[in-house]
């Protein structure tokens, strides 16, 4: 059998690691004991303390009164609201190039949860971890509370007057003013900006993306005359080749791509073919971890390899070859496979180098993919920033040519490589206005801060793809004194009346409404679009390819460098760092490294061995000290460090977490390059930096936990890789009666083929179930509270391992080991097969934790709510507004764990009972399942033979974790099937 290992320590000596872990745990426990006891010679004081307590207790018992609570009804109750019942509103999330159509759950006027919108053809009910966590951004204490001028409060009227005057005088002198915005995809907003520029011709719009797709955009401009990104249809391709594009994690439209990608890798409902995925990359990305074949390469080698692939295909297709640098990898087999799948393959690159992108376009053109697996019908518009425009602006700004700046949704002081120079320049501007919603480094320097509302508080419209529109609507009254930027622009044009909502409506009436014939009444059209959240307009674009610039692309390519290269990447959770103040995102362990609360230098295994480095050692990269994490699969000669950390003015949670790497982004050929060549790396001897590693948590001790096989094996024998299942089933004998469930028997199946490991489920669960943030130190102490974790196992060669991701939550065993050891019966089994947890009965013996073989029970070592020691969102009224009122907030000293979202089960059961009907299969969705972009989780009633879950449980791939223990889990896993050649 294949051996899996979770960290290098385990690979070397599993036994030693186990001993080490046990010691570590014992140390933690003794530490806690000591802390609570203080000094040793105080038993007298303890005695008096106890005495005082009993006295107080007695007096409370004898005379205490319950506090008087008020019940304040509505003055005029809105018709659609039933107190205690949630309402759902369709809306849209768009931020820094991330688009997602969402449904917002609102309880008694408070948005508390984000779900995916199933009507959206783009996000298709999926969300990402960042979208899930965006609900907490609404309740962020670092948001600006009102308009400010030079650090002091001001009124909107005063600010409007002063800014309009300043803009006028600048316009009269024809001094340039720049409206610097992140990619804009709102048609109504664009119309406002057009009007604004008409009124102030000296204003120029510059769109700036901190992680730019400029190379792609300019290549597409050359090849297709389009400043957009084509529609990649992973569900219509058999072979996917990605050069450093983390399309399942952070690249362009990951939720959409994950939906398509996983649908083409499922083996249910008779599907028997899978797409094959090749990944060339330097750092171990989420996408790379899912690849069937992965090539670790240096970033500078990418150009040569793409060129070789182009030439190999060109040769077969009779096109002329292009000369350029040599390839480090033999791609002839890959070229053959691509040629065998013409029109059904996709080649993508995450590079920001126009030349590489031109070659990639050339390859896709030769393969005939355009119009088939890659479509220009409705191109993606979420990244608009061209680096050349930004560079021009920065040069002008530094030279003092730009006199005014309106910064909207951008933070160049922090996330531009020339942030320092921009900082000085902004200080010298005649007019600087920031529309920042929350604290950021750029806003801090601007004269005016005119906060815009959160996306959950305001109207908006979006066009993420050509002809694919969506609306955003307010789900709560504005919490603070904020105003839409569009309205600010209108005010400065002298329009004192129009609201942005009116404007959107008018725009839609004039454009979208007239573009359709199905509905003749605008109000009906508007209400339908608003209710659905999305509106589609059929597009039939004819885009012609031209090989403009292709032949010269080879010469523009870099040849492979010799020195160490530092790869700069975005993480799943933090992204470009805009929401670094969001504690949920900070605490989400990285899918690969399983580290939270820091960025770090991922180094290759061989490099660490040569230099005697271990995890938490410290190295310097061009003088900057960084903690080391040894990353299996990291390409030789490279180091990877995440962007988005090291914010200095983000708020109490995000400040000074990790190091800012944006200054290491360089400019090559006018485009920003997200890696650094010839880095100067040195080991800092004897120094360590603690990292919140949850990697070796809950070790599974090398048993057959994550099972896998290859497609050819699977086609021969559907139970391949899962032979153990039958064997252990046949051995099962029990003294206990077989549990019987009269009505429902809830169960869950997880398809390991569909789980990419993105971590969306962890945040979704956190939002739904009031799971608390505990901070770096407690994560280090192995006390992370997430009810669902994604385990990651490596197998094979540490230099380029295979990866398995496996979500693990409470298995709701029907023979649960935790249940019969509880001395107070706080965790009994329900009549519906759930392993229950009664918090108010739990006395915190932790026997259940010790007896749970899956390590899914969590103990509240401290009170994490309303406690200054844990100063995150749950320590203030604003942050606690996100709490789900349907789930108890757990106190110190009790155990908690996954409840299979019992509140959702109860809610749907109530609905069914009220309607007098049976529950339909798929009606109840758990939080982790509902927004999973891979549709990897299925929940349902095992007692219903027709349900999807019952069918999956009968699938030959189905198995249970540690099934040899005969715990009879209600959670099943489907063996992972790879598609290696």
């Amino acid at each position, binding site marked *: 059998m294949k051996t899996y290992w979770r960290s290098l320590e385990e690979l070397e000596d599993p036994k030693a690691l186990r001993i080490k872990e046990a010691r570590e745990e014992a140390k933690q426990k003794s530490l806690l004991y000591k802390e609570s006891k203080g000094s040793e010679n105080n038993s007298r004081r303890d005695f008096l303390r106890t005495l005082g307590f009993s006295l107080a207790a007695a007096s409370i018992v004898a005379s205490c009164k319950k506090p008087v609570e008020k*019940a304040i009804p509505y*003055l005029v109750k809105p018709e659609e609201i039933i*107190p205690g019942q949630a309402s759902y509103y369709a809306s849209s999330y768009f931020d820094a190039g991330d688009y997602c159509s969402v449904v917002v759950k609102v309880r008694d006027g408070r948005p508390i949860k984000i779900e995916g919108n199933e009507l959206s053809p783009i996000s298709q009910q999926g969300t990402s971890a960042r979208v899930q966590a965006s609900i907490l951004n609404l309740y962020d204490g670092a948001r600006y509370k009102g308009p400010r001028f030079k650090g002091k409060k001001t009124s909107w009227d005063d600010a409007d007057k002063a800014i309009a005057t300043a803009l006028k005088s600048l316009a009269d002198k024809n001094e340039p003013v720049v409206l610097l915005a992140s990619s804009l995809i709102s048609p109504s907003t664009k119309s406002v900006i057009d009007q604004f520029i008409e009124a102030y011709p000296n204003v120029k719009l510059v769109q700036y993306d901190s992680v730019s797709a400029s190379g792609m955009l300019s290549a597409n401009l050359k090849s297709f005359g389009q400043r957009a990104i084509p529609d990649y249809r992973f569900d219509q391709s058999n072979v996917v080749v990605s050069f450093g594009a983390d399309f399942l994690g952070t690249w362009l439209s990951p939720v959409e791509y994950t939906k398509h990608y996983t649908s083409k890798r499922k083996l249910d409902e008779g599907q028997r073919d899978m797409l094959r995925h090749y990944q060339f990359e330097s750092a171990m990305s989420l996408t790379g971890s899912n690849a069937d074949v992965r090539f670790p390469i240096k970033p500078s080698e990418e150009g040569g390899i793409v060129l070789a692939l182009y030439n190999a295909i060109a040769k077969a297709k009779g096109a002329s070859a292009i000369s350029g640098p040599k390839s480090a990898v033999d791609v002839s087999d890959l070229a053959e496979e691509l040629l065998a799948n013409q029109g059904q393959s996709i080649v993508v690159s995450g590079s920001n180098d126009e030349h590489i992108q031109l070659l990639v376009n050339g390859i896709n053109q030769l393969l005939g993919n355009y119009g088939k697996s890659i479509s220009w019908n409705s191109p993606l518009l979420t990244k608009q920033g061209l680096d050349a425009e930004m560079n021009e602006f920065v040069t002008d700004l530094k030279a003092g040519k730009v006199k005014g700046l309106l910064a909207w949704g951008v933070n160049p002081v922090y996330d531009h490589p020339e942030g320092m120079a921009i900082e000085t320049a902004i200080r010298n501007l005649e007019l600087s206005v920031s529309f920042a919603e929350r604290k950021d480094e750029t806003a801090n320097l601007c004269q005016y801060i005119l906060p815009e509302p959160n996306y959950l508080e305001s109207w908006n419209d979006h066009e993420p793809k050509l002809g694919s529109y969506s609306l955003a609507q307010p789900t709560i009254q504005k919490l603070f004194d904020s105003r839409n930027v569009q309205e600010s622009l209108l005010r400065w044009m002298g329009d004192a009346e129009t609201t942005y909502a009116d404007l959107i409506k008018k725009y839609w009436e004039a454009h979208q409404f007239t573009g359709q014939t199905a509905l003749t009444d605008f109000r009906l059209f508007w209400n339908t679009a608003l209710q659905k959240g999305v509106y589609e307009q059929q597009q039939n674009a004819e885009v012609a390819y031209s090989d403009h610039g292709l032949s010269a692309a080879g010469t523009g390519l870099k040849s492979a460098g010799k020195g160490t290269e530092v790869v700069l990447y975005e993480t799943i959770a933090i992204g470009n760092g805009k929401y670094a103040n969001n504690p949920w995102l900070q605490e989400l362990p990285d899918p690969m490294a399983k580290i939270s609360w820091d960025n770090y230098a991922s180094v290759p295994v061989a490099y660490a061995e040569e230099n005697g480095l271990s995890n938490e050692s410290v190295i310097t990269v061009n003088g900057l000290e960084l903690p080391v994490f040894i990353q299996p699969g990291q390409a030789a000669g490279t180091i990877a460090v995440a962007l988005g950390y090291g914010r200095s003015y983000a708020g109490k949670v995000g400040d000074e977490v990790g190091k800012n790497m944006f200054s290491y982004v360089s400019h090559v050929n006018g485009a920003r390059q997200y890696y650094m060549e010839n880095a100067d790396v040195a080991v800092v001897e004897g120094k360590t930096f603690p990292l919140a590693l949850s990697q070796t948590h809950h070790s599974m001790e090398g048993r057959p936990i994550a099972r896998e096989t290859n497609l050819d094996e699977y086609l021969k024998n559907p139970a391949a890789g899962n032979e153990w299942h039958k064997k252990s089933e046949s051995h099962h004998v029990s003294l206990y009666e077989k549990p019987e469930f009269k009505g429902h028997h809830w169960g869950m199946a997880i398809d390991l083929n569909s789980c990419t490991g993105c971590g969306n489920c962890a945040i979704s669960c956190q939002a739904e179930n009031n799971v608390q943030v505990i901070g770096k130190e407690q994560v280090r102490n192995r006390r992370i509270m997430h009810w669902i974790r994604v385990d990651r196992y490596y197998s094979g060669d540490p230099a380029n391992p295979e990866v398995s991701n496996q979500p693990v939550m409470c298995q709701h065993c029907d023979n649960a080991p935790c249940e019969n050891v509880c001395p107070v019966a706080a965790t009994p089994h329900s009549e519906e097969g759930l392993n229950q947890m009664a918090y108010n009965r739990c006395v915190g013996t932790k026997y259940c934790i010790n007896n749970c073989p899956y390590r899914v029970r969590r103990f509240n070592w401290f009170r994490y709510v309303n406690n200054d020691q844990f100063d995150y969102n749950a320590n203030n009224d604003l942050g606690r507004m996100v709490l789900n009122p349907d789930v108890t907030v757990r106190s110190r000293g009790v155990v908690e764990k996954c409840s299979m979202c019992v509140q959702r089960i109860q809610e749907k059961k109530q609905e069914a009972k009220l309607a007098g009907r049976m529950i339909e299969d798929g009606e109840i969705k758990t939080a982790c399942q509902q927004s999973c972009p891979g549709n990897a989780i299925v929940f349902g009633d095992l007692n219903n033979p027709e349900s999807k879950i019952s069918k999956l449980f009968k699938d030959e791939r189905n198995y249970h974790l540690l099934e040899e223990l005969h715990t009879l889990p209600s959670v099943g896993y489907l063996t992972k099937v790879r598609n290696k050649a």
Partner: protein
Amino acid sequence: MKLKFSVSPAFGYLPMAVFLALFLFVNSPVLAESVENQHGAVDGHSHRDIKRGERFFKGLLPHKLEHQACVSCHNLTPTDTLNWNPSAIAIAEKYLDKDFAAFNNAVMNPGVGMLAQVHKDFKIEEEDLKTVKVYLDNLAMTGPVPQNMTINNLLLFLFLGLLITWALLELIFFRKIRYRFIPVLIFLGAFGYQAKMLVDEGIKLGRSEGYAPDQPIKFSHKVHVGENGIDCKYCHHTVEQGKSAGIPATNLCMNCHVLIREGTNSGKFEIAKIVEAVEKEEPVEWVRLHNLPDHVFFSHAIHVGVAKIDCQQCHGDVEEMDIMEQHADLSMGWCVNCHRDTEVQFTENGYYETFVKMHEEMGIEDLKKVTAADLGANDCMRCHY
């Protein structure tokens, strides 16, 4: 080294005695008096005027009045039975920011209705009425009259503690009583009673059966439900769909009270509060009676909408309550017992077709009745999650 303790019971009760002394001091009338003095002067009126006003209001002045004292209708302290007349404090608050002329007009020329009948033959000197206004203004500012301290359980508990201490001291040190069984009996009795108190109070902790607080408006369920026969679900209209039965929004009250501005019992004073709330757009702050702990998730919809349980089963004879009170103790035992006894609508409601095997047994075996508990209503995670 570890210290070993043998603590005499006397030592144990020493802090209690200190506590008792402190307790008595804090609640003593001496302190209350001094607080009152601070608010002595209202708009230049002396403490004398206030006192005189108070005496007039309470009917304590030596000369004989032809009519009853104000206080006999307008309560100063909450009472167990509903007094329909506006309480002194409510009047005080209403007229605090109005001048004497308005007050005088309201008392002496009340127009028509109940108030006019009662106040009809009032002959009050303007001087007297002015002092009453001063007294009431003062009352509005100082707040309701504190109730006299009653000997509560704590005192009894501490007294028993003292008895125990004495009995133990007697047994061990003094040995003055000849018959040893007397202090032993006293000890056992006192100790036993203390234990009983602790257990009783402990069980009652967090329960508030019979809780009937004063509400901001003297709303009577008896009048609305009992006498006028309004259905519960007319006002509590989310009871069949929502977790919460819903306290009616003020605009719902106005459905009727837009016309009905004077009650048979209460006159105009109480209903005017509703109108005022609507006009001022300030919702009424009712005092919440039924207060389940935060870790209990109860749904009215399941009990009323699905199980068709009568409101009265849990809330008592609301149609006879002038002052609404908590009928059941809302303890877990109460819930669980009811689940064991109550039949579900097993054959009527289509949802229960899920229980295939039980339906089959209904036919052949002697399964006649299916209770909520049979279907798992007493699982922890039905109510706690």
